């Protein structure tokens, strides 16, 4: 996955246009789940949770409305708050969290190892969003 915030944001916006507004938050949370699945066996669930909490904390500097979360599993509060926002705001905030997450990982274990660990990760567009995307 290319963890550039601008690219992620553009892709999330594209998905929202071709599917529906809920697709942004659904894709974001699915992607976080995928990150947990890949990283937790290696660095532990606590390691992933610590990275996620920090990346949300950093993103709140520009998106103060994001909820304070401690683990990726607190998705309900995240989902509710995201869906109160416009598509632009949702896409920008989600892109900020994902790119921060990656940047922190890179700062700790380096870009080579981060790319290696996340080599199979892409924006995890849920199946039904995919179907809506393809129909359009």
């Amino acid at each position, binding site marked *: 996955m290319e963890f550039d915030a601008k690219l992620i944001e553009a892709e999330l916006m594209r998905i929202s246009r071709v599917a529906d507004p809920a697709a942004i938050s659904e894709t974001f949370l699915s992607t976080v789940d995928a990150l947990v699945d890949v990283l937790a066996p290696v660095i*532990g*669930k606590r*390691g992933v949770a610590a*990275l996620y909490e920090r990346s949300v904390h950093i993103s709140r500097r520009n998106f103060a409305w994001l909820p304070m979360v401690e683990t990726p599993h607190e998705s309900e509060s995240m989902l509710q708050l995201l869906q109160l926002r416009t598509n632009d705001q949702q896409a920008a905030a989600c892109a900020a969290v994902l790119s921060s997450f990656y940047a922190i990982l890179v700062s*700790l274990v*380096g870009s080579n*190892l981060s790319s*290696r*660990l996340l*080599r199979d990760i892409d924006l995890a567009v849920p199946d039904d969003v995919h179907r809506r995307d393809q129909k359009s």
Partner: protein
Amino acid sequence: MTHVPVEIRRLGTSVAGLDPILGGGLPEFSFNIIAGAPGAGKSTLAHQLMFAMASESRTALYFTALGEPPLKMLRYQQQFEFFDGEALGQSVHFVNLGDEASTGGPAAVLTRISLEVRQRSPAFVFVDSFRSIMLGGRESPTHADVVQRFLQDLGLLMTTWQATTFLIGEYFSERDADPLFTAADGLLWLRQSVERNSVVRKIEVTKMRGQASIPGLHTFRISSAGITVFPPASIAATGKRSAWPIRQRIGMGIDELDTMMGGGLPKGYSLLVAGPSGSGKSILASAFLAEGARCGEAGVIAAFEQRALHSRGAAVADLVDAGRIAVVDTNATDLSVDEVAALVLAEVHRLGASRIVIDSLSGFELALAPTFRADFRESMARMVAALTNTGASVLMTSELEDRYDDLRFSPYGTAFLTDAIIVQRYIEVDSRLQRVLAVVKIRGSGHSNELRLFHINDDGIQIDAMLSNHEGILGGRPRQKSPRVAGE
């Protein structure tokens, strides 16, 4: 019927110097403990072993538990050259047991390890930190039984799944974990010996079932390349010692000195050149190396003096630049005799060198960690034996304070270790400081007993005549002999 024991394959570890002290490598399918205090180098050794031994057909599983967080471990371990990021997810798999260890205790950990081992059939399994798993649930009255059962089950699982296993744990003494140490096939202790400001890392193979490991504490060093172990010099040396009696002689680079020695230094001998500061020991050593190079022989020098290469002249510097003389890097702090011997031997083998210079024993002693100084004499004996066992000739210099009421050749009592001795001294003649030298000993060979004046010029050491008509030269202030009176 003759009993034929099962053949246990020994796995090369690729950790420099480790296989010899293990007794030839690690027994395949063995159940090993890597123990030591925090900071001793346990995880570094484990990672180095894993990256060296794992391959796509023989994968490794590295379980992390509650010790060092995996994020930090990956961050720091990748600084070592042996860390291969490409191997991750291919031949090397990290698995975190944090949840199982913190909530389920040893039983949950074993279940998860079993699952992963059955899924992946790894050839190598590492559990780091094992002690943190063992501490889970320790308040339970049945904890000791749980631990025993856990160890037995884990050992059985790993052996039957044909995995060579390493449990890594913070232990401070052998008394810490008796059941674990009893169950293990191999036990490696990593220690740090502290004396004054000096810290020396040491490894001990306390146990290695089925093979003869080398007992004792062996020094090791951690560099960017990882761990390098320095086995005793006596087992690190390979080569062929010159056969006795030695008939072949080698030139010292000073013709008159060769004559005094009965035709040069017998090949493969160790020679001690002792003398006070500035008397010309290093120049003599340089002549010895340069003469070797002239005859096509490579040389190795371990220099412990400040500005060591400056005092050796342009000829030796040129030979060093040309790669015909290797200079051993002795700048590391807290050296051990075995480490220096290993460095010298590596260069001897690399160049096929037949001449070795150690300049000087005094500087060498100062470069050693304090913990090794008490055993300097014994260590030197082993090192000299190891170096000459390669078939090379060894010249060592020794700083000797001029004492005119005491004829000594070495402050370390090492004179008996060497096959030959040359001594240099200052004397006062006509209010001038003059130098004399003598060949004191050449084992099994005749040699001159003359005390010869010598001087040093741009061409090196020039040996002059004896100081005739004088006596009491070794007293430092020779006196002219009284003319004999006729009839006396």
